């Protein structure tokens, strides 16, 4: 069995989450937004995986199972997101979220 430092993994996923967050907050292109979300999502999945690996036993297995489910969720989300991209594009002629201000009263 291999040994790896936990701290490094946490640092990595934290960094990825921060990058994803940064992307979510700054990017105005919907597709870039989706990509940023995916980065953050991957950081989360990574968390599950390495904690599962460190925990071991049934609990660890459950962690991996959740990771699998999350991958599924992420894929679904991208699919729906792209559907929204298409709808938005048809509606507005652009996929710039800054111009989709229907939420404003």
């Amino acid at each position: 069995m291999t040994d790896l430092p936990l701290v490094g993994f946490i640092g990595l996923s934290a960094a990825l989450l921060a990058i994803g967050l940064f992307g979510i907050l700054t990017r105005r292109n919907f597709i870039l937004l989706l990509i940023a979300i995916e980065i953050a999502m991957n950081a989360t999945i990574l968390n599950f995986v390495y904690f599962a690996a460190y925990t071991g036993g049934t609990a660890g297995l459950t962690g991996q199972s959740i990771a699998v489910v999350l991958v599924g969720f992420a894929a679904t989300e991208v699919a729906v997101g792209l559907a929204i991209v298409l709808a938005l594009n048809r509606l507005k002629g652009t996929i710039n979220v800054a111009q989709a201000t229907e939420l404003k009263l």
Partner: protein
Amino acid sequence: MAGLSGILEWAFLVPLLMVISFVVVGLAGTRLKRLEYGGWIAVLFAGAALVVGVLVAAAEMLSPGQYVNVQYTWFQLPPAAGTFPNGFRLVAGTLVDPISALMLLVVTVVGFLVMLYSIEYMHHDRGLARYYAELSLFLAAMTGLVIANNLFEFFLFWELVGVCSYFLIGFYYEKPSAASAAKEAFLVTRVGDVMFLLGIFLYFYTYALAGPGNGWAASGFVFTNGNQPFLAGAMGGNSTLLTVAGIMILGGAAGKSAQFPLHVWLPDAMEGPTTVSALIHAATMVAAGVYLLAVTSLFLGFTATDQLLIVAIGGFTTFFAATMAVVHSDIKRVIAYSTISQLGYMVLAVGAGFAMVGLFHLFTHAFFKALLFLAAGSVIHAIGTQDLFKMGGLRKPMRITAAAFAIGGLALAGIPPFAGFWSKDDILGGVYSQLGTHPLYWPFFLLAFAAVFLTAYYIFRAWFLAFSGDGPRDPTLPHAHEGSWVMQVPLIGLSALAVGSGLLIFWPNFQSLLLNGAGAAGIPPVFGPTDLALSGISVTLGVAGILLAWRLWGNGRVYVLPESSWAQPVRRLLLNRYYFKVGYDWIGQRGVYSVARAADFVDQFVIDGTVHGFERMFAALSERLRRIQSGVVSDYAAYVVAGLIAVFVLLLLVAPYLVTLVGGA
């Protein structure tokens, strides 16, 4: 006469009869046009009450010194920790003892006669059903007050008397002056009532746990235990609290009995019908204040400080009111001021420790003062004016009235053998015997003495102005005539009483009634003219007053004070009633009402303004805040993240710090 004593337990019938009269007349009076709108019903009930009242008084007088207590629990609280550990009870009950029997007699007799007199006197007025209903309620309240067996019940009827008086003064409510006088009377007495209430609280509080049984509170704050004051131990108590309590009681009495400085309402109360003035503002209601003082003095006791204060108020008022009576030209007002002055004598007597002598004067005064008012009413009924300077020469067409007024005047002036002499002389003699108590008794004694002269002068000034001379000074007045028997019977009856009631003092039973009324308290009075020198001086003063009145006003003369006279400013001061009313009005209008207006302004613009300010602030704030609602998803995401971070900061950093601060709840 043991059989008659049974009636003492039925004394409650008197107020009950009058309440029934009130309900019957009040509900059905307007439909009983043929019965004088219920007037005759009221007379009937008053007659029945008179019979009971006379029987009660007779039973008490025939074997003096009986104390009969009947009561039932009004409401009660179980024993509770803290406030009243032995329980608290308020009772409704009657107590017939010498003083209440005496008062019951006065009220029922005068009440019945006035009621009868009203039948003709009020015949032409509108709203008679209301009049007789209110008069009945008034009599119920007054008799209830007289036979109340505890302070609380006393206060209850006291207030009822006040409100009846309010309605009766304001009987001619279309007249703004009458409506205003009614309000003034209620308000001024209300000031007294408030003080009275505090006095009650002080006594309740001080003595709640004292006395036999489980204490005063548990037995319903009644006055007596057998024929002794319930709180025998309370007598002569001398503490700040009791002194304050006594002052408060004095305040209440001053309000009701129109003593200085709460005297302003009584002259204005003459706006009511003359019958009302006779009943309420001469004989009975204003007597309630004196009665209260007497009851307190007999059953609870005043401290020495209180007594001095009572003497001061009484003695001063006696003179103070008499001076104002000297200049006024309205016949009812003159009598009204004399009432204030005479009440001062009674208060003075109670203050000096002779409560029963004060009550004796109340007894005689009720008859001759009612007589004076009814005689004045007879005059007013005949010629329709109250201005003395328009009258004159009425002696000829109205012989009975003139005689009645003269008898009343002589009694008031204290000329023997008329009733007023005996009682007033007893008061002066009593106070004289107590002058050693405190040096300050002297000036008030002298004031009261001086008032004898003024009294004789002003009442005979009124008599000469109205009845002497050749004819009315105002020729437009209608031809005067005597009233029918309905008006004459009360005049004659009261005349008899004005002569005879004072002579009762020589009846041993009556003396013993007064002596027993004292219970264990007060100084036993000595009756009759004991100090002949004193009596001689007072009678001389009275006669001198009458002679002066004759010199100035007799035979139709009219004395006009020279414009240049030194006395003109004094006259103006007296005519303006020492500017008291002006001052009180100023306090009410400029003082209280201005404060109220200012408070209204604060309420509308400061308090509500603050609220509206908040409203505007939030409106402005939301106008700013809504700009962050850009509609851009990324912005919202940023807010979510910021919020999330804030929550984490709170949970992980601030909360643990707070926990360590509180020390772990």
